[in-house]
Each structure stands twice: as C-alpha cells, then as structure tokens.
C-alpha cells in the first residue's frame, strides 16, 4: 500500500509542478512527535469550506491528536500516521445542529415549567452520552449538537454543545457546558395556568424583567448566583438561541436580543411566516437557524408554497443555518433539511454550508468547527457522494480524528 501511495504521491507531485493551486499551503504533513496520535485519510474529494472555498480532488486530510494538521492534495505521509484509504469518498466537515433535543434520547426531560424563567437550569444533567439517537446521528454525518431544553418556558436554561461520539463519557464528548442560552420568545412558552405570560405582553415582560436584573447586576459589578450565566450572556461571553415564529415573534426577538440588548444571538425557527421579516433580521445582522419547517403556505397565504429557507438565505443575513429541532425531525435527517433548501433554490454549496460552517460561525465556535482547515477539530465525515443527495451514504465518521462509525465495520445504520 505504501508503494501505491508513493506512486500516487509521485504522480501528483509531477502534476503539481505544472498546476497552479492558488494560495500556497503546507505541502507536507508534519512528522509525529513521540506520544502523538496521527491519522491521514485519503479521499476522492475533500470539500474544505475554507476561506477560499477550496475542494481538493483527490484529497488528503490529516490530523494529530484530534486537530487537523493538513488538508490538501495527496502528499507524503510520514511514519507513524494511521493511514485510512477511502478513495471513492468525499470528505465533508461534520454537520452541526444548533437546535437538538435528543440529549436524553427521547421527548422527555425537555421542559421544567414551574417558573416561566429557568435561567439557572442546565441541559447537561439530562444527557445520556452515546445514546442510540446520538449514535445514529453520528452515523448520518452529524458530529456536533447544541442539546437544549425545550421551549415550554421563556428561558428554558442553558444548553450543552456536545459531540456525537458513539461510545463515550460526558467529559470526552462535551464541547462546551454551558454552550449557550435557550430562549423561547413566543409560540410555546405561553402560560395558561394563571400567571404572567399568557399574552405577548406578559411574555415580553417576563424576559425584560429577568434581563433587566442581570444587566443591573453586571453594571453594579455584582455576581448574582441565580443569574450568573445570564450575566455572562449580557457580557457577550455566551450565545443565545431564540426560539420564535411568525413575523411578529421573529421581529420581536431581533428587536429585543440584538437591537436592545446587543447579545450574541441567533434566531431559531423563524417559521410560520417569519421569513417575511428576513430583511429586518438581515439589516440587524442577525443569523437565523431555520427549521424544522422550511416552507409555509397557510400563514403567508400568497397561494404559493413559500420557500422560507430560500427567502432567509436570499435576504443576505449572516450565517444562515438549518436545524431539525430533533426529534421533531429525526436528528439523522439533518441532511434532508439541506436537501429541501437546495430544492427550493438555495445553491447546494450554500445549503451545505448551512449545515456546517454557518452554524459554527453563528455560535462563534468556528475557531474549532465547521470546516476542514488546519487547526480545527478533525470532525470529518466521508460520504459516497453529494451529502445533500439522499442517495449518498456515509462511509466513515471521525470525531477529533477518531473513527466513531465505519460502515464497513458497523454496517449501515442510515
């Protein structure tokens, strides 16, 4: 095998001599230090989603101790690397879903609805690492999830950014805890048992009140134990994911969390006609994480099946991304959200970014996730073809350079 590799390398080298590959990058893999673990994957095509949006055909992705050290054309692989040959596959960054509820592998453990604000709650204790839903998600190319509380209360709590390692402990798989805050602006947190929050006015007040207290504590330089994480949000240290819908709910979320509080925030859902305020969100530089509904008919009432995903993307707002709201849509069908967006007219390259780089950027975790670039986590998914085409399948999934799923070994899970 090494011989073929050398031959290949040689052949490629001669081609390289004449080809113009644009910006120069590391042309060889770094040698391994003692104690380091290196892996080098030969693929048919490496879709990097890097700054120049390069695709290497054929490609080589290499990582040391879980971080990518090389992405490019096939090159000499130093001794010690585990070499993985997948010449028929496409290497694509692992997908990221910013709105997932499968931490506890089911519909349970979603909402603690006694208080309308649960700012001190965390989703982490409910997470069952390596649960069957996470494993299937991994086998379908989804490598990072934002596992969050439900939308039953105005602030559900703080979610966990979590990798879908298939056999793991919490500590090995956690990316950030707390990873961000979950807010439900409208369309579910309405209170019906008689306390404040039965109306939009009430919901708005509930949010304004608790945020006001957190901001006051920040201004006074005081640490309120019950609001410590919320205070961090208002210091822009943690992102906020806001569940909202309708043009009114979506606009209200933009107004409150971006224009008024200037937090690091992301709209989530924005369905049921919310796409009609896409321009407003774009003007406010507000990213939108759209789904599970990606089209609308009855609310817009234009007679057309309105392609809301397309409208959001087209508005030019930053980092348009897609979600499943799993298990509303099963987590392993995140790709299908991209497929349906592309079907609506979003260019397939943009639809792919909506599943990878854009959610990473929206949550400011793109220093580690979202693309195949040197220095980032080696979360690499090897596909048999276009990931957005349901006819393609996942061959291999690596999280931080470690193979979590391999179709040849584990069978085809999805």
């Amino acid at each position, binding site marked *: 095998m090494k011989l073929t590799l050398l031959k290949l390398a040689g052949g490629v080298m001669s081609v390289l001599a004449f080809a113009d590959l644009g910006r120069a990058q590391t042309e060889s893999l770094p040698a391994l230090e003692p104690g380091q673990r290196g892996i080098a994957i030969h693929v048919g095509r490496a879709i990097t989603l890097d700054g120049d949006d390069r695709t290497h055909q054929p490609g080589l992705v290499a990582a040391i101790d879980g971080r990518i050290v090389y992405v490019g054309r096939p090159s000499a692989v130093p001794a010690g690397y585990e070499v993985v040959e997948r010449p028929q596959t496409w290497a694509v960054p692992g997908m990221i879903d910013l709105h997932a509820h499968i931490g506890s592998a089911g519909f349970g453990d979603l909402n603690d609805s006694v208080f309308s604000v649960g700012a001190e709650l965390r989703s982490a204790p409910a997470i069952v690492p390596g649960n069957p839903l996470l494993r299937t998600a991994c086998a379908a190319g989804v490598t990072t999830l934002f596992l969050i509380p439900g939308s039953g209360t105005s602030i559900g709590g703080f979610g966990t950014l979590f990798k879908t390692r298939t056999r793991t402990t919490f500590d090995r798989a956690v990316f950030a805890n707390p990873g961000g805050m979950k807010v439900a602006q409208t369309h579910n947190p309405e209170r019906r048992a008689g306390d404040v929050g039965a109306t939009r006015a009430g919901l708005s007040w509930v949010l304004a009140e608790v945020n006001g207290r957190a901001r006051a504590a920040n201004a006074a330089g005081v640490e309120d134990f019950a609001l410590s994480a919320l205070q961090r949000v208002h210091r822009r240290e943690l992102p906020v994911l806001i569940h909202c819908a309708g043009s009114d709910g979506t606009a209200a979320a933009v107004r409150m969390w971006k224009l008024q509080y200037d937090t690091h925030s992301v709209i989530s859902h924005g369905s049921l006609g919310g796409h009609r305020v896409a321009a407003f969100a774009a003007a406010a530089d507000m990213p939108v994480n759209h789904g599970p509904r990606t089209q609308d*008919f*009855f609310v817009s*009432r*234009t*007679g057309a099946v309105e392609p809301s995903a397309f409208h959001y993307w087209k508005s030019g707002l930053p980092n348009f991304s897609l979600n499943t709201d799993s298990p509303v849509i099963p987590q392993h069908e995140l790709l299908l959200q991209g497929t349906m967006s592309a079907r609506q007219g979003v260019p397939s390259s943009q639809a792919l970014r909506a599943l990878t780089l854009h959610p990473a950027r929206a949550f400011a975790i793109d220093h580690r996730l979202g693309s195949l670039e040197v220095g980032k986590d080696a979360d690499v998914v090897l596909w048999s073809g276009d990931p957005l085409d349901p006819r393609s399948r996942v061959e291999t999934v690596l999280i931080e350079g470690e193979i979590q799923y391999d179709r040849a070994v584990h069978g085809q899970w999805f």
Partner: protein
Amino acid sequence: MKLFASALLAIATALPSAAAQDVFALRVGRAETIGQGTLDHAVILVENGVITVVGQDLPVERGIPIIDLPDAVVMPGLINCRTRIGVDGRGGGGADIAARASAELYPRQDVWEELLATGTTTLGIYPPGNGIPGLAAAVRPAGDTVAAMVLKDPAYLQLYLRSDRGSKKLFTDAFEKLDKYLEKVAKEREKFDKDNEKSKDKDKDKDKDKDKDKDKDKDSKKNAPEFKPSQPDDDVRPVLDLITGRLRAVIGIRKAGDWLHLLDVMGERKFEFDLQCDLRDDLDLFYIAEEVGKRGLRVIFDPTIIQHPGTRRERSMPAEFAKAGAKLALSPRSDSVEAHRDWLNQVGELVRYGLDRQIALRAVTLEPAHVLGLGDKLGSIEAGRTANLVFFDRDPFDPARRLLGVMLDGRFVSGELLP
C-alpha cells in the same frame, strides 16, 4: 321631514275612504322596475293590489288618487328565496322528499313584521336536513293564518348533492322510484287498453242486435271508462312534478367538484333547477363558472367576497358567474332580521366590486321570484304583477338610504308612509 309631511298629505288627500284605496297611482322620482329598467318620473297605477300600468311621466285619469313621492326611489319588494327565518332553527334531520316547510310555519310572530320593515315582502322557506329534505314554500311575511301567508306550496324541491356515494345514491334512488312508478303506470295503461279492446269487441258482437240493445249502446258509450292511473306515492310525486316541469329544484353544492358529480347523477334527465352554494374563503367554485354560465343556469349565493384558495386575493363569485352568463340570485348572509336589514348594503358592496348594478337589483327581486316559481307575479314593477314595493329616499344601494315605506299587495304595511 319635508318629504314625510308632503307624502302624508298626499296620501291623506288622495285616499278619502277605504273603498277608494283599491285604485291609486304612485308618482315617484325614480322606479327601478327591473323588467323595464330604471324609469325616472315613473307613474305606477295599482288596482286591487295589482300593478296595472307602469310608465314614465304618464298622465293620471281624473278621480284616481295620486300619491306623490317626487324624491323617492321605488323598487320591487325584496325576495329572499331561501331562508329559515321564522321557523325553528334546529329543525329535524330527516330526509323525506315529501316533507313540507309550510308545516312549520307559525303566523303570528313579531319577526314577520320586523322582516317587512326591512323591505322584504316575499320569502322562500326551505325544509331542514340533508340529502333531499323536502319541499320549500313561498310565503308572504303577513297574515293571520298559514293559508293567508302561503303564496305557493310547494315552491321548489330542495336537494343537496355531495361528492360521495351515499349522497349520489339518494338522487339515483329517487329517480329509480320514479321510473318504477312510470313503468307501473305504463303497465296499467296497457292493461286498461287491452281490457277496453276486449269490452269493445264484446260490444261489437252485441251491436249485431243493434235495435234490441239501443239503450245498452247508449249506456256503454256513456259509461266509456277513462284511464285513471294510480296515484304516485308521496315520495315519488315531487320527482314526478320535477320531471314533468310542474316543479323546480334548488340543488345545494359545496364545491366545484360537486357539480361534476351532479351532472353524473342527472345523466340524460332534464329538469329545471337552480344551483346554490354557501360562499366561503378557499372555495374553488370559479372552476365551473364558465360551464354554468354557458348553460344559463341560475345560481343562488350570499353576497360575500371570498378569498382565492390559499391566498388573500379577493374574488367575487357573484360577479364572475354573472359575467359568465349565469342568472344570479342573492340571499342575505344569515337568517336574521339584522341580516335582512343589511342585505342591500352587502349587495351594494358587490356592486362597488364590479357586479353590474341591474344584475344586482334583479338578484334580490326578479331572480329569487323565479326560484320560487313566481317569476310572472313578483319581483318586477310591471303590469299584471302584485304591488309589492319598497320606497327609499335615495339609491337603494346607498348605505345612508332611509326606508320610507313598504307596500304589500297594494297596501302600505310599514315605514313612514304608513297612513
């Protein structure tokens, strides 16, 4: 006020005694006659509750009292051809072809007076229920007895056609029963003819002894039997009347597809019917406008503007069907006095939306009269028709209009013009 006073004076001087009330002339600023279009300075001669002469600027014979209403606009009394006002809202659920709505009438109710006060002078009360619920009656909202109220009973047969096997089977079953009855009658006729032949032969033999049996001859001729067919069952008679043209039908549908299933069920049979449909948003009825218009059918709608399916785009089904050539009848939006009061406002809105004005006027007068089978007696200001009239101080479709008076069978029964 001026008008009021002058009108009163006019009537007071014009009608000195009860007997003389049987003949009088009305001189109005404008008459929406329907049959003859809009007539300015119209003169209407009424004798014994019937209009005898209508014309423009006609001179009136000396001695006939004249009621001068130079600023008034008169139109035929409004006719709601399909309502259940004044009868039990719940009704029954039975599907009995022979059931009569007239059986539910209760004469002495305030609602009739209130209805008259809105200008509604004729009603078509239809029976409750689904399928083929029975026969409607045309009534006047006045009278101490049911007989006094009823103008025509039955006025039409009410049917509903839905796109499903059960509903269609009701229709086909009804026609099958009719066919069976007609077969039975045909057989009876055959038998009768055969028997007649036999008895004729017998008589012929007897004729040989003509002289002897002169008297018998005479008797046999006198007693020549007439063919009397057996009477149809109660549930067959209405269908028989339908096929023979003695009765009309109103067929209620809910969507465009129902029309195709109606054609399927009717097959080759021909009878007079009007289509009726409750208008609502997302209704797809426009698909059949052309076909219905081509056949010149009459449609009964409520005066509603609806939204094109799945959109907020507004469409006026009444206007579209009228434009396609259908005859249009419009009924108030609900069975309440308030709705009847608002009726002309709603129709006026349709006119502003593009419905032809004359068609709109016709839709609340002459066309509903035709639905009830009374199109030669009501619904138009023409000679020979009943003097049911409504007087306004301006254009009937103007929301600021004031109703001055209502005339029923040649007598003012409501409004300021009441003597």
